[in-house]
């Protein structure tokens, strides 16, 4: 058997050195060519390829004179061209035939062109002509002199305000398309052009799918769109099940890129990127850029929720929230509850979570032992029940919402030993977002805030207990109940608040246990409206998206 030494004892059959790249070209190189240069040519990396910059091609394509290649996408090449008959500059997208241009591919192209041509909007690049020529399909569109959004962001970081303004416009453009039953499905910075005036224009409806058609163009093997800006449901190939929320996701990813300079997910390969889209939580944009406003980060992350139901349900809602931010008004998107945030953190850090759980168990054991020894008293720090926000479409529900808050306040006020600020004092803080400021003014340690949406005979309520001293959520709950259950909800909220503020009832003195029980009982019994004992049922996850309201 030949050893390595013997194998290597052969004369070096050097052929020559490549005059372009300097690599040694051996005799086994195909046709005597430099294989490195051949591969680089295949990638389009050689100097005169023009792949990464405009280069004159000087070619004819029917009525069009191709001037330079300006883009390359999954379905075709885009040229800057001159339409000879009208002597105007256009952008010409061409898809040729060959192995990559299967019938599904061509059908998709036709859908793209027809869908885009039907839309007339100042922020959508207008289509001039659609056609086929010598086995190739093409469409010509208005040439936007400017640059792609990704190029602009790369050149110069964009201010948060500017980013919010742009995204709001783009979101409304997408909403327009959705109202005409057209999804974009490939929203990314590369498909957003900025003209000379800095106005955005949406292009490349390459994956537009008319939702009223039963299309079989895409199957589970074809995942269309750019992975970094693709929604999880799109990445999984659920083309037929896409909703407007998929485009909302992509808008959020674009926004993330504008704010941080990077997409939310970018793996080394398409495979890795898709895996991240499906499995990973996006990093808070504020960790990449601490200057990003908290509310903008909230808006961005809401768009990037894995569950479509948790995003803005329409692009318009997204645009509306951005406009609120621009007007310095409170946004509707909520910071995710402490439980949801914890859940996402656990998914990101399973090992640390396990260790932390062990530590917590030990700490609870020690803490319980200490509590049994020294007892625990109800803290005399106080709570203020802030006016709940009315998210209902019907403005007349405001009085219902106020009444709900008032009932909870009343229940808590009857708990002995618990300082509860009066309704009169708290109402002035309606809409105020600075928790610490409120707590300092009212001299309380805790604040209870919430939002209510009444739809038909159901209410959706979100309540949060905040420790104003540390500005942290102590407790949060979402309720989705039938209207008759509102009393039980109020009681449950009050009970939970008391539980949080009271001592743990376990192994304490009999007298202490009795006092705690009586407090809980008083919570249950206090209600002038309760004709029958309230019916308690475990809270169910809120089904609607927070801040989901159309103006």
């Amino acid at each position, binding site marked *: 058997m030949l050893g*390595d030494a013997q194998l290597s004892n052969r004369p070096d059959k050097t052929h020559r050195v490549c005059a372009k790249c300097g690599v040694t070209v051996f005799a086994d190189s195909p046709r005597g060519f430099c294989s490195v240069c051949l591969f680089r040519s295949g990638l389009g990396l050689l100097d005169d390829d023009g792949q990464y910059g405009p280069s004159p091609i000087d070619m004819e394509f029917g009525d069009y004179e191709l001037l330079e290649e300006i883009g390359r996408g999954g379905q075709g090449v885009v040229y800057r061209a001159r339409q000879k008959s009208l002597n105007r500059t256009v952008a010409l997208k061409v898809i040729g035939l060959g192995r990559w241009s299967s019938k599904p591919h061509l059908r998709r192209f036709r859908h793209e062109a027809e869908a885009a041509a039907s839309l007339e909007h100042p922020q959508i690049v207008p289509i001039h002509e659609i056609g086929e020529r010598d*086995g190739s399909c093409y469409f010509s569109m208005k040439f936007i002199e400017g640059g792609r959004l990704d190029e602009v962001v790369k050149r110069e970081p964009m201010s948060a305000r500017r980013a919010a303004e742009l995204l709001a416009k783009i979101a409304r453009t997408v909403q327009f398309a959705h109202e005409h039953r057209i999804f974009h499905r490939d929203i990314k910075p590369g498909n957003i052009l900025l003209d000379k005036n800095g106005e955005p224009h949406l292009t490349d409806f390459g994956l537009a799918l008319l939702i009223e058609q039963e299309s079989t163009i895409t199957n589970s093997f*074809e995942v269309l769109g750019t992975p970094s800006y693709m929604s999880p449901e799109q990445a999984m190939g659920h083309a037929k099940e896409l909703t407007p929320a998929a485009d909302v996701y992509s808008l959020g990813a674009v926004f993330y890129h504008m704010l941080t300079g990077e997409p939310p997910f970018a793996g080394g390969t398409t495979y890795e990127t898709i895996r991240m889209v499906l499995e990973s939580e996006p990093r808070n944009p504020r960790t990449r850029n601490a200057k990003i406003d908290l509310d903008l980060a909230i808006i961005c992350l809401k768009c990037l929720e894995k569950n479509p139901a948790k995003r803005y349900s329409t692009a318009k809602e997204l645009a509306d929230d951005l406009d609120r931010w621009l007007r310095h008004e409170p946004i509707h998107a909520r910071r995710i509850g402490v439980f949801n945030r914890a859940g996402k953190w656990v998914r990101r850090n399973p090992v640390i979570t396990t260790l932390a759980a062990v530590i917590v168990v030990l700490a609870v054991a020690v803490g319980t032992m200490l509590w049994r020894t020294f007892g625990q008293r109800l803290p005399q720090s106080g709570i203020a029940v802030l006016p709940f926000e009315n998210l209902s479409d019907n403005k007349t529900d405001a009085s219902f919402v106020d009444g709900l808050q008032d009932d909870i306040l009343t229940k808590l006020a009857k708990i002995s030993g618990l300082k509860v600020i009066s309704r009169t004092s708290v109402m002035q803080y309606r809409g105020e977002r600075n928790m610490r400021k409120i707590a300092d003014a009212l001299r309380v340690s805790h604040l209870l805030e919430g939002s209510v949406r009444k739809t038909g005979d159901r209410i959706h309520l979100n309540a949060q207990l905040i420790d104003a001293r540390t500005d942290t959520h102590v407790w949060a709950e979402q309720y989705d109940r039938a209207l008759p259950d509102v009393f039980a909800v109020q009681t449950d909220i009050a009970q939970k608040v008391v539980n949080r503020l009271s001592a743990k009832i376990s192994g304490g003195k009999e007298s202490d246990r009795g006092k705690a029980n009586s407090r809980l009982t008083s919570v249950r019994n206090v209600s002038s409206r309760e004709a029958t004992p309230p019916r308690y049922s475990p809270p169910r996850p809120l089904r609607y998206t927070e801040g989901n309201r159309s103006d």
Partner: protein
Amino acid sequence: MLDRSRPPNDKGSLSTISGTTQSGAVAFATTHWSIVLTAQGESPAAREALEKLCRTYWWPLYGFVRRQGSKPDEAQDLTQGFFALLLERKDLDAVRREKGRLRCYLLTSLKNFLAKARRRELALKRGGGQALVPLDELIARERADLEPADSLTAERIFERRWALTLLEQVLTRLEREYQSVGNAKLFDCLKEFLCDEPGCRSQAELAVELGMTENAVKQAFHRLRQRYRQLLRDEISQTVAVPGDVEDELRHFISVLQT
């Protein structure tokens, strides 16, 4: 005219690429390797696809075996035996773990195979007489003694040969396309521009030689290069399962051949 379906000619047709793999908008279900990856259980299509891929890429595998220290006939037996065993396999879970690149999968499988192989079992596993490793070509290449072996590891030889095999496949396909429409001479003249090495004749000089305008030569080369790129990516796509891996493979080969 814009036409990429017909073989290139110099009558003014323009070829374009229908797309890179960046957005993944490609019907990968039809590529050989993706068929193998998605085959469930015994699938004639998967077996045929895998066999075709093995026939194409036996040379780099053989080179690996040789570099591990086997004599030519021994290496041929081992490589042949490896292919036979591969084609009998029904469990492709390991393939999916390799993220779907045929090159990585074959190398890993071959290493495992070599570690376990014994000569008696190889004699029994010669694929029922079906020779996937062409002996005459093997001998010719061995005698030509063409490649550097001094400082290359077995893996490096494998990677290098894989890249060169791929290129040879592409150039052969491209040449055949031009030959089929009577443009063999045009191909012979234009192909040298693919590498754009200094010292080659200019396109203007070629235009004079071929009796064409310089612009026509320019266009003809543009079509050839576009078609070359398509075929190169197509060839790579046969060995990967994810569209985005095509670009990765291309860059990987460049780095392999540069060292």
